[in-house]
């Protein structure tokens, strides 16, 4: 079902014929006024064609030259990029790159974790920890060890209630 606007446009452009034309014209309240408006619209069309249809382009050759250069520039560069990507980023390369990155991650991860763990005990400290305080000689003796986590890695041996320092505690 055509709208009034569609029918009017078709009528104006001479696209209505036969029964459709008769029906449309008979539906108009003032056919004479409509015909005046039709002529008016046709005048407008002719006027626009005359005034705007003569629009020309200066420097046509330069336009084509500029366009050729632009097309050459825009089509060459992306193809180079695509070519470079297609030769370098093949599937096997992607797999190898991924595996290498994973291996490096694991190695560095282990190294960092080991770095954070306390260092091996010195022989001296092991000896101290293994030594026993005689409870008969030193009934209230306590021996505490503090180890700082900073870069200096200082170990503090805190003794309390000892009558004398056991021979094992002597620095070697």
């Amino acid at each position, binding site marked *: 079902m055509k709208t009034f*606007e569609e029918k009017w446009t078709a009528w104006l452009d001479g696209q209505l014929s036969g029964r459709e034309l008769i029906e449309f014209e008979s539906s108009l309240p003032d056919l004479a006024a409509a015909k005046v408006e039709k002529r008016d*619209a046709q005048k*407008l069309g002719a006027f*626009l064609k005359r005034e*705007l249809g003569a629009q*020309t382009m200066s420097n046509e050759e330069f336009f084509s030259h500029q366009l050729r250069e*632009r*097309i050459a520039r*825009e089509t060459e560069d992306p193809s180079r990029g695509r070519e470079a990507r297609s030769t370098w980023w093949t599937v096997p390369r992607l797999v190898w790159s991924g595996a290498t990155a994973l291996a490096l991650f694991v190695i560095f991860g282990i190294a960092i974790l080991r770095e954070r763990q306390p260092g091996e005990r010195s022989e001296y400290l092991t000896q101290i920890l293994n030594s026993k305080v005689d409870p008969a000689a030193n009934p209230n003796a306590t021996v505490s060890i503090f180890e700082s986590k900073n870069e200096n890695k200082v170990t503090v041996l805190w003794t309390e209630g000892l009558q004398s320092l056991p021979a094992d505690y002597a620095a070697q």
Partner: protein
Amino acid sequence: MQTETTPAQADVSELDLVKRCQAGDAEAFDQLVIRYRTRVFAMIYNMVHNEQDAWDLAQDSFVKAWKSIRRFKGKSSFYTWIYRVVMNVTIDWLRKRQIKAGGAEFDDAIQLKEIDPASKTVPKSDPLPHQRMERSEIRERIDKAIAQLSPEHRAVILMKEIEEMQYHEIAESLGCSIGTVMSRLFYARKKLQNTLKDVYENV
């Protein structure tokens, strides 16, 4: 649309040029550009009313056409297809410019309300004598009147009146229905009749 050669010759050679373009032949595309550059430029110029903008948009349109020519299946004529590219580029540009300008230049809703579909166009009481009116002034009046239309209405009236394209060709170029084309044509004509009556009656 007028062609420089007979329609049959133009169609055959044009199709051949398009096929060569699709195979990557830039020289064939250059031939198509030569064939359409003036019309494309004029069409865009009549829509944007600025020579430099029209030049740039015509360049953009042809570059876009070159990049997407492999997608042209030949279901419609090449000029309908190239006009579709041109219209997409130009209407997009006009819409973006409208947004940047705050949307004051044209407004479909307001314009359509202003026009009574059954209104009769009445000449203004004191028309400017055509003897005094310079060509540039006429052009300025036309440009101002067209500038009041939305990009889609501009496209429709220009393709119909200047390019003499059929409804279905305009519809293909704009990617809309024939009914929409006819409706837009109705309102665009009414608007221009109202605003340019005194000019075209006296020139």
